[in-house]
């Protein structure tokens, strides 16, 4: 926040601080922090929509049941289209990922809320889980033939070792880019919003301009929150497709 005395002081990264909820300064392995709280709230929100919202199982759905059904069929179709028919057995995992990331992003947009997905530690766990799942699935389904993913048959023989090296590196960079994309996008958006909000405090009467800018930015952030959740899941589907059908 801006402090008018002694110039403009904006600390856009303060909002990402992990604090213990019940006093103390130490964050241990099992300390209940604000991250724990907002992750729990995310789970509650997802359960409210998907379990309580669609409890009626009416033939003519209510509004919340309709939202739940639309989300379900949207993700189902995405898994089928991108990863193929045989990837449907991973559908429960993928919709869990999508709903968790979506609701974590959206809950983070509530003023004074904490964005759990803005922490690389959180998204790295999600991305590593995807990476390990995909790698194990690849070896279980295809056996050693999974390594064909790195050996491009369509390329000239002399070029294949070079390509194999590139493919190998890009395979192991996947969890890094997968996690940092989500965390980076969320962190950047929230930091920019905070910087603009800081200008509003410092400008006096002209505060209208940054407030309008923040409003527009907030709309953009809503869009980004949904798109990043979508991108996270669709990339999971793409990686899964590679694991199930490794030949190019």
């Amino acid at each position: 926040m801006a402090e008018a005395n002694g110039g403009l002081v904006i600390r856009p990264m303060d909002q990402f601080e992990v604090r213990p909820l019940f006093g103390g300064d130490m964050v241990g392995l099992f300390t209940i922090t604000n991250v724990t709280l907002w992750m729990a709230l995310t789970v509650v929100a997802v359960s409210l929509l998907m379990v309580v919202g669609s409890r009626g199982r009416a033939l003519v759905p209510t509004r919340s049941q309709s939202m739940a059904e639309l989300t379900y069929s949207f993700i189902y179709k995405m898994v089928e289209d991108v990863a193929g028919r045989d990837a449907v057995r991973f559908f429960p995992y993928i919709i869990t990922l999508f709903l968790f990331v979506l609701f974590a992003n959206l809950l983070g947009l509530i003023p004074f809320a904490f964005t759990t997905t803005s922490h690389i530690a959180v998204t790295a766990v999600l991305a590593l889980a995807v990476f390990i799942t995909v790698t194990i699935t690849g070896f279980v389904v295809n056996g050693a033939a999974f390594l064909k993913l790195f050996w491009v048959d369509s390329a000239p023989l002399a070029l294949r070792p070079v390509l194999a090296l590139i493919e190998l590196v890009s395979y192991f960079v996947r969890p890094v880019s997968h996690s940092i994309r989500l965390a980076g996008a969320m962190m950047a958006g929230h930091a920019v919003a905070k910087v603009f909000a800081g200008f509003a405090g410092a400008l006096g009467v002209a505060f209208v301009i940054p407030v309008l800018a923040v409003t527009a930015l907030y709309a953009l952030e809503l869009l980004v929150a949904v798109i990043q959740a979508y991108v996270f899941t669709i990339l999971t589907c793409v990686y899964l497709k590679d694991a199930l059908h490794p030949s190019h």
Partner: protein
Amino acid sequence: MEGDLANMGKYIGVGLTAIGMGGAAIGVGNIAGNFLAGALRNPSAAAGQTAMLFIGIAFAEALGIFSFLVALLLMFAV
């Protein structure tokens, strides 16, 4: 004085990483523009390719976010 010089270099480096974000902007714009050009020529095929559009945008955007990460590392970790 030594520390000031090091800080100056740090901030110049952080500013330079912003160029990487410009590159990502060019990439994302290129993908979206080409998608639109293709979609206007054959609108019936456009709906099936939106997933590919987002995948392409995500890959291009990742590189911009890497430069953002380098900026953050320089600012807060180095």
